[in-house]
């Protein structure tokens, strides 16, 4: 029945007095692989966090398949920006991936055999089976990124939000990750990815959102990923805010 799996309406976010996101409206259909593109500080991470209720918007509402985040969070997976945690934390790869199962387990109960198997599967999927028991402090940046991806995969979600999953990974890992994302899309999942490399947008994604505080444009890559729109997006934020776009 629901045509759009994600609906964002009138979303405005400010950490301090200046808004970081201004009146965002997006409707995202099911089964797309969508890039969020924009300069540093454009509010890409904030947009994801606001949709996931991690920062409180000043105004606006978000619906997932017609319901609020609170109702649907079991079906939503999240890959935070890699730099958002301290990788010197004393724990292993398997332990971190297991955290992806915590949401379904709930309070107090511990992950069991089933959860462990699921996590091992996900670790294999991202090609990290050699590193299952490795301490996370001894991983390279690309390996850390794959651990985060595996943790999201065990969430077994229908919508995924990924904040710069390609940051600091080599070409081979990037290809491995994009293949996993494309496979998710094939299985009908909706995947939203913050992406920085404009060269690969056309190749990797079918939808794109151009963001710089305001939502400049969004839609099918062929239609909205134009030089003109990119020029506006990567122009100064002030111009974007003032000038009618």
């Amino acid at each position: 029945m629901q045509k759009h799996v994600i609906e964002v309406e009138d979303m405005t976010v400010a950490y301090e007095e200046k808004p970081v996101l201004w009146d965002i409206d997006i409707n995202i259909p099911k089964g797309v692989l969508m890039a969020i593109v924009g300069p540093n500080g454009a509010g890409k991470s904030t947009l994801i966090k606001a949709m996931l209720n991690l920062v409180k918007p000043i105004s606006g509402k978000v619906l997932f398949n017609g319901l609020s985040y609170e109702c649907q969070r079991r079906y939503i997976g999240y890959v935070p920006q890699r730099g958002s945690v301290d990788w010197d934390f004393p724990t292993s790869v398997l332990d971190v991936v297991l955290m992806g199962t915590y949401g379904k387990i709930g309070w107090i109960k511990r992950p069991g055999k089933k959860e462990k198997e699921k996590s091992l599967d996900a670790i294999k999927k991202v090609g990290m089976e050699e590193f299952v028991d490795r301490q996370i402090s001894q991983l390279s940046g690309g390996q850390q990124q794959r651990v985060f991806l595996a943790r999201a995969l065990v969430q077994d979600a229908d919508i995924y939000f990924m904040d710069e999953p390609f940051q600091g990974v080599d070409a081979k890992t990037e290809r491995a990750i994009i293949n996993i994302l494309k496979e998710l899309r094939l299985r009908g999942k909706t995947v939203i990815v913050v992406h920085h490399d404009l060269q690969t947008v056309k190749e990797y994604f079918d939808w794109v959102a151009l963001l710089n505080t305001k939502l400049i444009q969004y839609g099918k890559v062929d239609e909205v990923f134009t030089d003109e729109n990119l020029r506006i997006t990567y122009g100064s934020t002030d111009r974007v805010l003032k000038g009618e776009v």
Partner: protein
Amino acid sequence: MMSLELLLKDYTLQIVALGSAVLGAVSGVLGSFAVLRKQSLLGDAVSHAALPGIAFVFLITGIKNTEMLLLGALISGLIGTFMIIIIDQYTRIKFDSALGLTLSSFFGLGLVLLTYIQKLPNSNQAGLEHFIFGQASTLLKRDVFIMIGLGVIILLVVALFWKELKLFSFDPQFGKSIGFSNVKINVILSSITVVAIIIGLQSVGVILMSALLVAPGVAARQWTDKLSMMVILAALFGIFSGVLGTLISSLVDNMPTGPVIVVVISLIVFFSLFFASNRGIFWRHIKHGKNKRNINDSRVLINLYELALNHKDVYHPHKTEVINLTNNKDKGNANVIKRLLYLCEKGYAKRDYFDTWSITDKGIKKAKSIIDNQGGESL
């Protein structure tokens, strides 16, 4: 050894030491999380904030009833905690400033009240100042039983919420995104930390309590990369310093317990920072030197091997200068000779005449396998 004898004989001392052991264990466990969450200073603020509560209760009741005093400490500690959280949430003052503000204002108020109490014509006030630096010998049997009870509760809570505590210490944002409430975890962790601080006030005192909370965790982190191991080790370090500190302070008249415990745990921290097996500065240095030497040995062997390949006769001897690939002729040569002598000793190379060297069959085989393993193989 005198202290050991003392401990075995003296029942009161045993009780006191038991109390310190419980305190050490609890501090170690909670401190591990405080260290990992980078909130070491929160405990400092809360313990300082407990002082005015103690003074207030004494002013109101006029007697020194431990439970009542600690209840006062608990209440003002909690008020301090909430003040920090509220300042942080609702003003533009940063978290560390909020801590400093709360710590100094509450502690200042506590000192003012204590000074006022000292001047009162009430003989009961003697000993209140023990709450500043701690005096474990003032513990009564009943106090220790309360400590044990609260300690067990704290440990149970940690065991129960282990998974959540781990999740929130590592990645709170993700934890929130999968539906665990930040607020709940924070309330749980802050409350048990406040309780741990309260049970430490008598023996360690408000000023140094936070050191006991942080130091075992820091020391334990040096020895292990596993959270459960870290927490257990921190508890053991806490127990050890608690008991030893108590014994030492009871051997010397009027020696406050808190500083002694903190000196002991600080020694453990320093020792760990330098000598811990995987992170300690000392071993890291040695390991690094060994790795470097090993890689240098391999490089010299590979150079020799490549020279041999470029020559019709593989066993043709080469001069040190030719094998040395560094720019520094004098120091470099001496170094290369050292490495070459080592290779000769292992049978990978042979010295020919003065400083000319050739590779052996064994050396050729080794060099090939090192190249195959991209340097990953050691000599």
